[in-house]
């Protein structure tokens, strides 16, 4: 805690957010709602028009229709999520296809590239190191709490990388592009942190 922080007398004497310290990163509070943060209108995407692709250089090294994607191995995880706007939500349950299983399905042998850019409907992008997606750390989620993900929460499919601030779990994801060199995505170019570790409180550029 900053020693210079002024004390707000009378603050904190009432209700306090339930914040178990081992589960809620610094500066976060727990919510039971599911708030929404998006830069623009919610895209309405029909699953019959939906495809998902992996891109390496100028070519697609894997491409799936909705039905093909649904036939890939499915994984369910329970995890906490942390939004840079301060809310955390505990014990959320997601189902989808892990990044590991996607690489297997695309028969991508060996090394691809150390970074990816996620491209989404609505023009949104976000960048991630591959190391934060492999070994079960990231998935393309298609179900929340056992039901199809609502458009407002990123449906039909969103990236899920729950150990980073939730803007990295890009909504309406359609394509992952492998990159030899890191590039900044949408919010990362607009003043947000390039990596976004909630436990280090990496909210904004320079944190």
């Amino acid at each position, binding site marked *: 805690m900053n020693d210079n*922080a*002024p004390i707000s007398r009378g*603050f904190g004497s009432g*209700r*306090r957010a339930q914040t178990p310290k081992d589960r809620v990163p610094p500066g976060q509070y727990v919510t039971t709602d599911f*708030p929404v943060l998006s830069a623009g209108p*919610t895209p309405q995407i029909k699953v019959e028009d939906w495809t998902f692709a992996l891109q390496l250089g100028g070519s697609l090294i894997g491409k799936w229709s909705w039905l093909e994607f649904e036939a890939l191995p499915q994984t369910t995880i329970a995890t906490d999520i942390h939004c840079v706007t301060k*809310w955390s939500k505990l014990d959320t349950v997601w189902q989808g296809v892990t990044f590991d299983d996607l690489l297997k399905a695309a028969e991508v042998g060996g090394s691809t590239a150390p970074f990816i850019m996620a491209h989404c409907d609505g023009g949104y992008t976000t960048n991630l190191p591959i190391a934060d997606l492999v070994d079960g750390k990231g998935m393309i989620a298609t179900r929340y709490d056992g039901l199809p993900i609502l458009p407002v929460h990123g449906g039909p499919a969103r990236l899920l990388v729950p150990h980073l601030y939730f803007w990295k779990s890009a909504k309406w994801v359609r394509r992952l592009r492998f990159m030899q060199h890191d590039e900044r995505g949408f919010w990362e170019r607009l003043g947000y942190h390039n990596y976004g570790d909630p436990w280090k409180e990496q909210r904004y*550029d320079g944190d």
Partner: protein
Amino acid sequence: MTATEAVARASRRLRWQIAEVREIVIETPRVRSLLLYVAGWQGHLPGQHVDIRLTAEDGYQAQRSYSIASSPESELLTLTVERVMDGEVSPYLVDELRSGDKFELRGPIGRYFVWTVATRGSLYLVASGSGIVPLMAMLRHREFHKAPVPTGLLYSSRSLEDVIYREELDAMARRDPNLHVFHTLTRKQPDGWVGHRGRIDKYMLVGALVPLVSKPNIFVCGATSFVEHVSSVLVQLGHDAFAIKTERFGPTGG
């Protein structure tokens, strides 16, 4: 990285600063504006927000984000805060905070939901409740520069007494033939009310757009359900989704 780049990078870091409350304005029964002095404040763009951090006597801390209501040209930084029922931070800010009190703040944050008089094209603002706050920074900035930007504001409030900045907005519109302010009251309308009634719909959205040239820059701000509704109707009306910038205020935890 060169030394100059290192300095530029370091100076970008958003550090916690001390804000001192200079004045508190009662906007509505549930809403207060806090006029803050922040030594060395680096300025902001209309539409940006700040994080604030409160520290209790036992060291407990809580952080929240609040939109900036003041134009970049004004001397004091204004935050306008609505009391969220059962909230942890906003009831303190609205009911307990006094002139002279201090707390921590850092920002400005967000470089997407912003507008300045240098932006080309007309301006179309749609707000509900405290969603007016970041849009007010744009309107105050526009007024300061006497910018003749064709501008429409469609603003939804529960009742007349819940309209934030009502006198200032109406005075701005009276002075400025390029600014058109439309109110709708959703729950209670006074006798003789000539504005809109009920939730914002397609017809209100088309009507408020009439004085504008085509291709406006659109900003929509309010509760999530409001923003979802308005932005989807705007897309149905043929507006380019990329021209519509949204900010959703979750009522959560406030």
